[in-house]
C-alpha cells in the first residue's frame, strides 16, 4: 500500500483529474491528502507547488555540498513565502534629514554613558514611527482573514527585525507611545542582545503595529522589505549618507537616512503611504515635533 493516505472519494477525484497523489503529497510535504488538496492541486502544474523548479540535480553542473535548513529557518521561509504570495505589496521610497537627531544624540552621549544605555538612531526612529502611527490610525491595523474587517489597534507596539546566527526574528517593543527615549533604547538593546542567544520569549513576539527592519549598520541605499503579516506595513531603513541637498541657493551636505515603506495595498493606497512617509520624514527631521 502507498504511504499516502487519502479517502476513496479523494482518490477517485485525483484519478478523474489525473493527479498523482504520491507526487502531490511530496510537493505538499504531507502524508495525508484531502479533497481540497486535490481540487487545488488540479489548477495547474504551478499550483502543484512549483517545487519541480527546485527539483534539480545541481551536481551535474559542478561540485556541490548540502546543508540542512534549520527548523527555525524553515518556519521563517514559510511565513515569508506566504506573505509574498498573499499580500499585494507596494514599496514607497523616501529619505529623512537626520542632522537634528545626530546633534541631539551627541549632546546626550555623556548621559547615555552614565545610564549605561546605547542611544542609537533607531530608538529615535521607533519613537517617530509610533507618533506617525498615532496620527494615521489606519496604518496601525490588521485585515481579517476573510478580508471583510479591519481591526484598528488602540495600542502601539513596534517590531524590530533582528538578524542572528539562528536566522531572522522579530521581538516587539510594547506601548512605544507611552515610553520615553531612554526606555525604548534600553528595550531595543535588551531584546536585540537576547535575540542573539535565542532567548526572546514567545510572548515578546507578535502583536506589533508595524515592524522596522534596519540595515543601516550594514549598508545599502534602498530595498523592498516583505510585510510581516498580519501587519499592514513594514519600514525598511538603510545607511544614512551625507547627501548634497539644495537649500535654494547652494548645496548643503546633509546626513539623509533612506526609508522604504512596504505596505499592503489592499488597505493602504499610494497617496496615503506618501502622506504617512512624508509625515514620518518631517518628524525625523525635526524630532521636537514628536513631542507636540
Amino acid at each position: 500500500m502507498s504511504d499516502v493516505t487519502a479517502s476513496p472519494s479523494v482518490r477517485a477525484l485525483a484519478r478523474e483529474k489525473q493527479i498523482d497523489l504520491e507526487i502531490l503529497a511530496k510537493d505538499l510535504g504531507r502524508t495525508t491528502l484531502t479533497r481540497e488538496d486535490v481540487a487545488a492541486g488540479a489548477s495547474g502544474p504551478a499550483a502543484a507547488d512549483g517545487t519541480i523548479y527546485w527539483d534539480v540535480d545541481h551536481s551535474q553542473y559542478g561540485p556541490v555540498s548540502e546543508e540542512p535548513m534549520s527548523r527555525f529557518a524553515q518556519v521563517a521561509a514559510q511565513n515569508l513565502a506566504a506573505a509574498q504570495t498573499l499580500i499585494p505589496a507596494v514599496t514607497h521610497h523616501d529619505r529623512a534629514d537626520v542632522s537634528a537627531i545626530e546633534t541631539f544624540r551627541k549632546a546626550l552621549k555623556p548621559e547615555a554613558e552614565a545610564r549605561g544605555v546605547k542611544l542609537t538612531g533607531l530608538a529615535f526612529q521607533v519613537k517617530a514611527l509610533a507618533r506617525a502611527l498615532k496620527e494615521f490610525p489606519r496604518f496601525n491595523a490588521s485585515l481579517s482573514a476573510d478580508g471583510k474587517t479591519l481591526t484598528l489597534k488602540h495600542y502601539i507596539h513596534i517590531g524590530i527585525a533582528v538578524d542572528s546566527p539562528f536566522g531572522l526574528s522579530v521581538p516587539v517593543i510594547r506601548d512605544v507611545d507611552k515610553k520615553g527615549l531612554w526606555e525604548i533604547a534600553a528595550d531595543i538593546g535588551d531584546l536585540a542582545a537576547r535575540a542573539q542567544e535565542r532567548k526572546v520569549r514567545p510572548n515578546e513576539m507578535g502583536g506589533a503595529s508595524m515592524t522596522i527592519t534596519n540595515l543601516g549598520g550594514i549598508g545599502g541605499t534602498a530595498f523592498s522589505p516583505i510585510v510581516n503579516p498580519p501587519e499592514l506595513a513594514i519600514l525598511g531603513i538603510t545607511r544614512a549618507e551625507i547627501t548634497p541637498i539644495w537649500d535654494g541657493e547652494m548645496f548643503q551636505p546633509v546626513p539623509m537616512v533612506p526609508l522604504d515603506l512596504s505596505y499592503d495595498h489592499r488597505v493602504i493606497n499610494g497617496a496615503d503611504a506618501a502622506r504617512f512617509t512624508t509625515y514620518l520624514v518631517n518628524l525625523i527631521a525635526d524630532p521636537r515635533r514628536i513631542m507636540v
Partner: protein
Amino acid sequence: MAVNHAEFVVLGAGPGGYACAFRAADLGLNVTLVDPRADLGGVCLNEGCIPSKALLHAAEVIREARHVGDWGISFGEPKIDLNKLREKKNGIVKHLTDGLTGLAKRRKVNVVRGTASFTGPTGLEIDGAAWSFDQAVIAVGSSPVRLPGWPDDERIWDSGSALELRQVPKRLAIVGGGIIGLEMATIYAALGSNVTIIEFMEQIAPGADAEAVRILHDVLQQQGVIIHTGTKVVEVKATKAALGLSCEGVFDGEVKADAVIQAVGRSANGHLVNPQAAGVAIDARGIIAVDATCRTNVDNIFAIGDVTGNPMLAHRATHQGHVAAEVACGHAGALDTDFIPSVAYTSPELAWVGLIAATAKERGIPHKVSRFPWAASGRNLASGGGDGMTKLVYDPDTKRILGATIIGRNAGELLAELVLAMEMGATLEDIALTVHAHPTLSETIAFASERALGTLTDL
C-alpha cells in the same frame, strides 16, 4: 446469415457481470448480457453465497436451540424436513434471481440465454449465432477444481451439489478446509452428519490469522467436526458401502465416508470463451490478467470477477464490474484498493481484511498487534456468544490500521467498520474516540484500539 451487433456485451451474469451490465446501462450504453443459466446471478446467487448462507442460517438456528438448554429453555431434538428446507432455500434464491431479471428489464438490458465465445477481436458466437461487438466484458467466473484420479461416483460432490441438499450423509468427508469447506462443515454438522475435514495446509482457513483460526478450530471440534490438517488424500476407493479416503501426513490412515465434498479451490473459467481468438492473453490456469481499470491486454475487452484470479469473491467482482462499465464509458474508474474483506460464515464467523500479523512479520513491515478477547465483552456473553476476539494490526508510528481479524458472532458485519477505517486512513485514536454504543459487539473494535493506546478501562 445476419450478424447481430452489441454495443456493449457482458459474458456471464454473476455478481460481476450483472453489476457491470446494469452500471453500463445506467451510464447510457446499449447492453447485452449473455449467460447460459436459466436465472441471472451466476454462481453467487444460484449455487454459492446465497444458498450457502440460507443453509448456514438454518444450521445456526439448530445450534442456538441446542445451546439455550443451558438457559433453561429446551425445544427437544429438531425434526428436519429436508425437502422443506431445500424449498425454502430455493425460494430465497428464486426471489433474488427474479429480482435481478426485473432490474435488467427496467434498465432495458438485452438478456441473451446462451454460451458465448470469441471468434475475433470484435466477433462472438452465442450458441452458434454470429455477433459483432464494440466493447466486451469477460465475466465468466470460476468452477470448482476437480481432483485428478478420483473415481466417478455420485457420492462425490462439489460445493454446488452439496448445496442441493440431496441428503444428510451419516459420515461426510470434506476435502479442503478453506472458507467453502468450513461453511459446508458448519451446515452438515448441524444437520447431523459426522464431518471430517482434511486439509493439506498446516491450518484450516489458510491465509487467515493463525490465532483466530485456532479459536474456530477448537469450536468446530466441540461441534463434533474432526479436523486433519497437514494431511493429504492420496487415494479414493469407492465401494458399495462407503468411500474410503487414504490419507497421508499428520493423519495417516483411512477416512470412511458416505459422501465426500471436494472443496479444494476454484479455477478461473477463462478458457470457456476462447479469448485467444480476440487476442486476449490467458494463462495456463485460465486466468485473464487485468489492470486496475479491468482492461485486458486488448483495449476494448475487459475482464472482471473470478476469471481475473484471486481473491475470488463476489464483492470484488461487483466492484470490478462497476469499474469496467465506467472505464468503458470514458470515466476514470479503477479498483485501487488492497482492502478486500474475507468472511467465513462459520459459527463463529471469521472475518479479516488487510495484513495479518504473520504476513507483516514475514515482509518485515513494522507493526504492532492489539487484541480484545470477547470473553470480556458484555454483549457477547449476554447473547450466549462463546470464544471470540477482535485483533488489530497497526503501524506503531502512525497508529494507522494495517489489518484486522475478527472471530465471533457477526464478525462479517463488524468488519465493515474496519474496512472503512482503513480506506479512510483512520488511526487507533480515531476509532477509540468514535463513540460505540454499549453494549455491542462493535465496542470490541473500540476496546482493541483503546487497549493499544493504553486508555482501556474494560480490561
